């Protein structure tokens, strides 16, 4: 019940919150190198946790289900798109919206793994 998925999902939301806040500060042109480093570190950690959770969920007892694959793949595509947008410095204004969507994704993960 208090398995690894609950732990990872909880840590994921904590770090995603920190990443979201640092991202907001970057958008507000509070663009110091320190904030950028924090944002990048938190972003990569949440991405790794996301991948771990996806692998654990898909290899779990319930097996691979269509809706489960769709959800995790959508989250993965969003994360990769966000990284690409930031790295390519294209559509920078969409970075904020993608960041908000990713934060909502983490709330959804928390709902399925912890609250429900």
């Amino acid at each position, binding site marked *: 019940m208090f398995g690894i998925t609950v732990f990872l999902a909880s840590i994921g*939301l904590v770090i995603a919150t*920190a990443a979201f806040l640092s991202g907001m500060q970057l958008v507000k042109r509070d663009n110091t190198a320190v904030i950028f480093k*924090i944002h990048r570190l*938190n972003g990569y950690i949440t991405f790794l946790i996301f991948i771990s959770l996806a692998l654990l969920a898909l290899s779990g007892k319930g097996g691979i289900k269509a809706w489960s694959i769709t959800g995790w793949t959508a989250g993965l595509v969003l994360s990769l798109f966000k990284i690409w947008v930031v790295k390519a410095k294209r559509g920078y204004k969409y970075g904020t919206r993608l960041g908000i969507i990713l934060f909502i994704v983490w709330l959804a993960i928390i*709902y399925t793994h*912890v*609250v429900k």
Partner: protein
Amino acid sequence: MMPRKFVIVFICAIVLIAETVVTSLHAAVIHVPDNYKTIQEAVEKALPKDTIIVKEGAYKENIVVTKPLTIKSSKGPDATSVQAYNPAKPVFKIDNVNEAAIIGFKVTGSAASGIHIINSQYNDINGNKLSGNEIGIFLLSSNNNTLTNNQADSNELIGIYLERSNNNILKENNADKNNDKGIFLSSSNNNTLIKNSVYLNAWNGITLWSSHSNELQDNNVVRNTYGIVISDSEGNNLTDNSTWANVNIIMPILLIYTGIMLYIIEKKIFAMLYTE
């Protein structure tokens, strides 16, 4: 004198052999579906104390046990399931029997109960998985039974329900995600609940209603709306039970708050590390 002694010894030996033969005949092992196609057929043909071994597979039956039999799956509940043929009746009904055993089945699909024990004593219910029933295991006016290692999860009402049943032992069972209560004792006394896990039931984890002198020890009663609820009951002994209400509803808020704190700490640490 000698022949008479010899006759007595001979008669004793015959009686002993006959008793052994009768006992061994009584303890026959019946295989389903090899000897009989259905479990119910095997139950009807079996003699008291026989063992019925059920091969893996999905069976659709309502089984009524009226004699002391051991009904056991060969490969455990993940490979052997019994679904109610008539959903209005229990899947297994033990009626007025002493010393029967039901071991290692997945029991589903009854709008009454998965395993229903009525007026029966000293029965052993072990290692079963009961889900999708109205009640997982229902003991009515049944005493001195032992329920161990059962998983009574995701039932419509209650995982394990004891009514007017005394001196039973519930040990290391799971009663999770039931739509009403996990374990419910109603007018049941002197029962022992040890090391049961009762998680995520819609209302109460463990309920004692008009039930006295029960022993609750080392149970994990976590994330139910209410943990252990005791009403109109006296003399119950509760020791070392873990109870944690469903605070997970507010968990996201706590986690976000922790995230904000983490960000503030990170800023300070990074500022220290990267000062020119």
